[in-house]
């Protein structure tokens, strides 16, 4: 099936079932079961599952536009996580449990394993847990999951006092699940940012002050140009991360999350400035997006967290120019470099 044949129906489905009212209800703690059933019935949860295992067999690289829609509609369930988890399970010939799945890479300390601020964590029943060597399929319960307590958010803190028991174990992708989750955040930020730009442009055309639409004011035009620049940059960064995928090491994903997280403050600030007081009301939809943007910026590592990793690789590299470093380690899909140009990560 061609990508367009997958993309447009998914877009239509999400616009029909993930209405702002549904998002608000789930944010407020209502059961997401109805929405989840629609998503299960659609078959899209197996987007990344190999065709041989009954999925659509789409690669992460090609899936970017579909995954970005999850951000564009602020789908309030860990759908991207579930898609990746189902693909990993299917590749290991393991059955996937029903219900939403998380991708976790908890800190391991003497007093237990924990991870704070997992987006949509309260809504999941199972998780793939990355212990640094293998992935474990773990059932989540009310003991391990605790709401992070953010307003209108299902973000959760996960904690196990002893090593969680796994119902299955499987191989770990090269990037690890911390990076896989970060990639999904980056993609969601880019998708939501695109919607925020659309909202802001519409509003700038409609809102009249001083006898003309505010979008006719040069100050607003310049701000919206900046917003568009950041949105496009986030889109490129996130699609670069998808192009590299989760099997090739972590640097392209680090770049994706670095750049998308770094774009968040400006994107949210400009959008809110353009919308005036209306934008900070509960009733107006902008907050459904900007609240998440701020949460996602921090979740799975902020811009500085990932920048350190890229910086470490650059400082460790003997390559003379940053252009060559970027080309060989981040931009060019691994495997497509001519022999001799390859630098071992």
């Amino acid at each position, binding site marked *: 099936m061609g990508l367009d044949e997958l993309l447009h129906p998914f877009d239509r489905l999400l616009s029909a079932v993930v209405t702002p009212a549904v998002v608000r209800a789930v944010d407020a703690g209502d059961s997401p079961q109805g929405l989840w059933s629609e998503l299960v019935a659609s078959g899209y949860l197996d987007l990344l599952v190999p065709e041989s295992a009954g999925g659509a067999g789409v690669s992460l690289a090609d899936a970017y536009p579909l995954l970005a829609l999850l951000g564009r509609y602020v789908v309030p369930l860990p759908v991207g996580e579930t898609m990746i988890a189902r693909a990993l399970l299917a590749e290991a010939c393991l059955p996937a449990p029903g219900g939403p799945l998380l991708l976790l890479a908890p800190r391991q300390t003497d007093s237990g394993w924990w991870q704070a601020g997992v987006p949509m964590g309260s809504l999941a029943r199972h998780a793939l847990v990355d212990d640094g060597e293998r992935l474990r399929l773990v059932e989540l319960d009310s003991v391990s999951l605790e709401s992070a307590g953010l307003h209108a958010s299902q973000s959760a803190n996960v904690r196990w006092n002893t090593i969680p028991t796994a119902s299955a174990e499987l191989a770990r992708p090269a990037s690890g699940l911390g990076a896989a989750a970060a990639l999904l955040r980056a993609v969601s930020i880019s998708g939501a940012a695109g919607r925020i730009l659309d909202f802001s442009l519409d509003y700038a055309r409609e809102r009249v002050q001083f006898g003309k639409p505010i979008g006719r004011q040069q100050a607003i035009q310049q701000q919206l140009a900046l917003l568009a620049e950041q949105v496009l940059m986030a889109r490129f960064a996130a699609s670069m991360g998808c192009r590299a995928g989760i099997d090739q090491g972590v640097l392209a994903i680090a770049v994706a999350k670095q750049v998308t997280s770094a774009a968040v403050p400006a994107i949210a600030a400009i959008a809110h400035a353009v919308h005036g007081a209306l934008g900070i009301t509960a009733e107006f939809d902008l907050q459904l997006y900007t609240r998440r943007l701020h949460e996602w910026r921090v979740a799975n590592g902020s811009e500085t967290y990932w920048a350190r990793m890229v910086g470490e690789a650059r400082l460790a590299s003997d390559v003379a120019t*940053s252009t060559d470093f970027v080309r060989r380690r981040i931009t060019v899909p691994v495997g497509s470099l001519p022999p001799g140009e390859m630098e071992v990560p």
Partner: protein
Amino acid sequence: MFDSLVLADLPPEAEALRGTVKALVQETLATLTLEQRARSWAGFDATFSRAMAAAGLIGLTLPREYGGQGRGPFARFVVVEELLTVGAPVAAHWIADRQSAPLLLRYGSETQRRYYLPRICRGEIYFCIGMSEPGAGSDLASVRTRAVATESGWRLSGQKVWTTYAHRDDFMIALVRTSEQSSDRREGLSQFIVDLRAPGVNVRPIEDLAGDRHFSEVYFDDVVLPAEALVGAEGQGWEQCIAELAFERSGPERIYSSSVLLDAWIAHLRGVGRRDEATRALVGQLASQLAVLREMSIGCTALLERGMSPVVEASIVKDLGTAFEQSIPALIADDLGAHPGEPVAPELVRTLHYLSQLSPAFSLRGGTREILRGIIARGMGLR
């Protein structure tokens, strides 16, 4: 919004040029100091330009019948990227290669193409851009330099300014007024090829704040132009000029102006063994931005490759790219100043200060930041 601007891969034929360029620049770079390399596309070296031409690296996108290589924008991207990253002295042929030749190919007469294009490709003649005037900066349509029709051609009077390397180039493509009939100032403009050695042309270099002389003021005092100096059609100068600016703005020039400094600073950090968290974060932030901006520039190149003129997209990349280039000296100055105990090579310090001082130019040349943002806003339907 801007849905056609997406990730694209450089094709292997284009990538194959990288090695050629790397080999070619090596010898020249060895003769240059770090500060000279930081001049990058302001470094004028005709010997280097002729070596580039001999290697078939000028006029890459021009048809073979005019002496070009008949290749596409991707090939040019790779060559430009390699040159700018290391600060090769490309100024002599830069403007002709980037915009004058494509402009003449599109709008010039067959005689003009046959005369100028092969000479440009051989690295023999150099061009400059005659747009800005004392009274016409961002508001380019207010140019006052005039060409008046005569029996045998035109007579040119007026003044251009900020003309990069007019004092060392051979020809200028000048935007001038040929008619004042219309109330729309964008009408009645035309483009001419002006021989900078013709009688009545007076060129005076202007010294910049760093002590360099890269741009000039150019006076025209009743300069006699032959009829065939007109480029394209009389009165079509504005549209042609916009097309020329699109050639200028959609290349990858707007990311790499501080590359030499960035890499010298990273070499310094490696040398002194500084790898603390804050340093890693700063290096990683810049490398991440470079990775993405480069990819956006390749995305723009892909649109050129498809025959489109990505004016708005290129403005987005240029605005982001120049902000990135300008942030590099600002961040490195703070970083080095925060580590006064570290021995820093004097050359690195001088390069840093040079770029700190010159970097405002990055978002002026080729159209200011505010003008670009206006173009982006128009592209989004706000104007």
